[in-house]
């Protein structure tokens, strides 16, 4: 099967600091893949490179067979590749419902339709998705007044609202009440299964990522250290070294 996302030998340096060095990975359409690594190993930098936040120094990034490493953030987003942020980003001054209806696919916000009101279908979809992440009761509250975990869920729902093909999730469970994590994992799986959205997930919680991902890439010091199924990664001595320090 051809991969939906193919990263080949990507290099990104900030001055003298090489944040990503020859990183390659492939994510097949419909998969749930994980990206792990100690703090500072270059996971978020790689995400930023993929979504066009900064230009890469070398290498190639292909999404659905198309080279996207020269495109900018909004252009890549419009192709259906969206990311959520580690430090959650929502529109704080607007209500949850407003956050949702303005997150429709940008294709629906052309010259003519941008001056109209949101169609009833959008409102229904927004309410359904808020229900899906468990925020329906809060739909008329200012998004900025929600707790961090709730904002995280809202951001996730906003991403779904725009109907992406693939989501890059940067630590989706960080800051979420531990009792709610299992529910969130269930939702991620349903999103993947029902809507066919491919997921690439950065995660620090090992229990979560081993449970969720079918295949895991591990970065350390900006380089790809190991890859494989969760069981293999868990046993890989190089991964253990990277996390716990070399013996």
């Amino acid at each position, binding site marked *: 099967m051809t991969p939906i996302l193919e990263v080949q030998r990507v290099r990104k340096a900030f001055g003298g600091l090489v944040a990503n060095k020859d990183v390659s990975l492939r994510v097949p359409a419909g998969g749930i893949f994980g990206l792990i690594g100690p703090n500072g190993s270059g996971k978020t930098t790689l995400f930023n490179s993929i*979504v066009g936040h900064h230009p890469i120094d070398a290498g190639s990034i292909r999404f659905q067979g198309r080279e996207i490493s020269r495109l900018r*953030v*909004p*252009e890549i*987003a*419009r192709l259906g590749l*969206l*990311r959520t*942020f580690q430090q959650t*980003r*929502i*529109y*704080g*001054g*607007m209500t949850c419902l*407003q956050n949702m*209806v*303005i*997150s429709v*696919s*940008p294709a629906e*916000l052309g010259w003519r*339709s*941008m*001056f*109209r*009101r*949101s169609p009833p279908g959008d409102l229904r979809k927004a309410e359904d998705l808020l229900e899906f992440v468990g925020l329906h009761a809060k739909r008329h509250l200012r998004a*900025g007044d929600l707790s961090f975990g709730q904002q995280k869920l809202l951001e996730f729902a*906003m*991403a779904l609202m*725009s109907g992406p093909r693939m989501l890059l999730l940067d630590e989706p469970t960080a800051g979420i009440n531990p009792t709610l994590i299992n529910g969130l994992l269930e939702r991620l799986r349903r999103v993947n299964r029902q809507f066919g959205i491919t997921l690439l997930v950065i995660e620090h919680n090992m229990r979560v990522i081993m449970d969720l991902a079918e295949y895991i890439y591990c970065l350390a010091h900006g380089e790809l250290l190991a890859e494989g199924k969760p069981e293999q990664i868990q046993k890989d001595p190089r991964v253990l070294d990277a996390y716990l320090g070399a013996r």
Partner: protein
Amino acid sequence: MRGAAGRRLLLGGIVALALLAPVLVPAYRNQLSLLWVMIVFALTWDLLGGQMGYNSFGNVLFFGVGMYACALVQRDAGLGYQAGLFLGIGAGALAAVAAAALLGSGMLGLRGHYFAIGTLGLGIAAGELAGGWDFVGAGGGMVPPLFPGELGGRETFFYYLCFALAATTFPFLRWLYAGRFGLLLNAIRDDEDKAEAMGLRTTRYKTAAWCISAFFLGLSGGVVGNLLGFIDPREVAFAGSTFGVWMVLMAILGGKGTLWGPVLGAVVFHVTKELFWTYLLGWQRVALGLLIVVIVVFFPVGILGWVRERWPERAPGGGR
């Protein structure tokens, strides 16, 4: 619902008073004309500064462009007074929109303080250019043609023109904010990076917003040039230190990012300012300066914002 009916009654009352004002208080026609223009200033500034989070100090540029374009059409088109005036006002609006579209692509790439400072330069540069350009009268300015009607008819005519301007701007913006465009502007205000990450064409929306703002400012420029009867490049058309700053203050005073806030702010500011000019002559600018400090220190969220913080459940204002 108490709110909807009450609000409609209030709005009807305002409109009725506004229409009768030239008969009720004929001596204040020019003052009230300027009040309507001030309301347009505050509303159009708030479109960017309040709703979109882009604090522009250069909006007076569009006002001046509209004023000059209108005067040029009146001078050179060889039409009768009415035809020249209305064609000129229309041309002023178009010229202002063109200026906004042209400048927008460059200026709106700047964010935060950089945008504010960049726009500050626009008004100043435009004033200097107009002041040195013989075709538009250079430093001597321009004088629009005289109103042909009988004595006193002029004031009433321009009063209704200014009222029509405000009475068009307000409902148009209310309609605009109620649709998705309003949400797009708010999204840019709250987190522009997020909006881009969601694939929104932020540059397009920002430029459109500035063009809309410029359209109404261009219209008011044409009207005000004729109302005052004299166009000075730095003191009237590109008057950054008066009109340009007042736009910002009125919106902030009333409550930026709200529909009624700029209207309220414009009324309070204009009335206070006129009182200063009448009763504190000689010290009026000092008093105005102090008022500005008081506004910023005590009403950082504006009158409407302050009311909402105190009585959140009675949030007035209809719009967001």
